[in-house]
């Protein structure tokens, strides 16, 4: 079951081999009231304990497909539907320490039907979330 917060408790984990973590990932809820082409999502910045990991270096996983930042910008047909979740994969050698972290997300949505000065519109969320295993 998905939580109402954009940032999900589940899916917050380190990635890569246990002794040589390559990064971590965060699962997010699609945060808008309508579906969105991937090309309308200009990036997802993740901040953990005050350190920001910019969208340009991360990848996005939707279902079994992964997209780099440039691939997202070019993907005009695939959509994130209402109620979907997706995962942001953040490179960080060694991963995150086990335990509770303060996690923030900023999803940059471009809504063409909004006036230009409101683009992108940033959907923000912040909460505590727990890494179970180093």
């Amino acid at each position: 079951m998905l939580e109402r917060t954009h940032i999900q408790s589940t899916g917050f984990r380190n990635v890569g081999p246990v002794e040589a973590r390559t990064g971590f990932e965060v699962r997010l809820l699609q945060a808008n009231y309508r579906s969105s082409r991937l090309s309308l999502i200009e990036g997802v910045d993740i901040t953990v304990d005050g350190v920001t990991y910019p969208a340009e270096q991360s990848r996005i996983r939707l279902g079994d497909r992964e997209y780099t930042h440039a691939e997202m910008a070019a993907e005009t047909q695939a959509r994130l539907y209402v109620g979907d979740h997706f995962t942001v994969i953040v490179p960080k050698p060694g991963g995150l320490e086990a335990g509770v972290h303060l996690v923030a997300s900023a999803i940059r949505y471009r809504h063409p039907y909004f006036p230009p000065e409101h683009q992108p519109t940033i959907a923000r969320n912040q909460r505590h979330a727990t890494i179970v295993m180093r």
Partner: protein
Amino acid sequence: MDHWFAQLERYGLEPTNFACWVDTRIQIDRNMSVEEGAVQIAQDLRLAHRLGFKFIRPKFGVIDRTLTPDPIWEGAVERSLDLAQQLDMMILPEIHAPTPIRHPVTEGYVNFIERTGTKNFGLMIDTGIFQDRPLDAWGGGDFEAIKKGAPEMVYGTKVPVDHLDDIIQYVPFIQAKFHRIDENLHDHQIPWDRIVPKLKALGYTGYLSSEYEGARDPWVAIEQVRRQHALVRKLEAEYEAANGGLVDA
């Protein structure tokens, strides 16, 4: 599809307007072509038709604060008119705050209808344009930031209700936007006491479809929509009582 129609039947619902978008700024460095816009509208017309809707409301991307649509709208719609006619559907862009009725955006749509003579394109009016008193809550986002960034959205576009006279012939559907109706059936932002008599006087026979955009506390919306329905029905009955029954019966 069977499930959709079974649910409509079970709850006594009628599909009316299918909300859709023409995301003109489809990529950060590229806008949609007329052809891409037409493909999007065709897809939405076909889907809406299959689901039993009568209208689609494409939200075109805009190029300024007054919501001037991307210029591709006209070619994209024109290429879609034959399909809309085949499907007996109407394409209705929305006149939405802060765009007033007497404005180049609205005039552009009216000119298009008059130039093409089409019966498959019209206007949707969002009653938010008649808001004449400030909001006291915002449906989402930072209220103080919105006050600074989009003051007209907070204080109201204040379109005179009489301006409906100009365009009502092109309006089959009204998005009945509202924000707060109190326990005395008093609306704090939208002048229903002027809108409803005006619609009656004009012989409006189209739809009013509630769109609650007020405080998002749990369960508030259900009661708010019920109050709006009660208020609109009350004003309609009062108008009919004062004017000797139905105007256009």
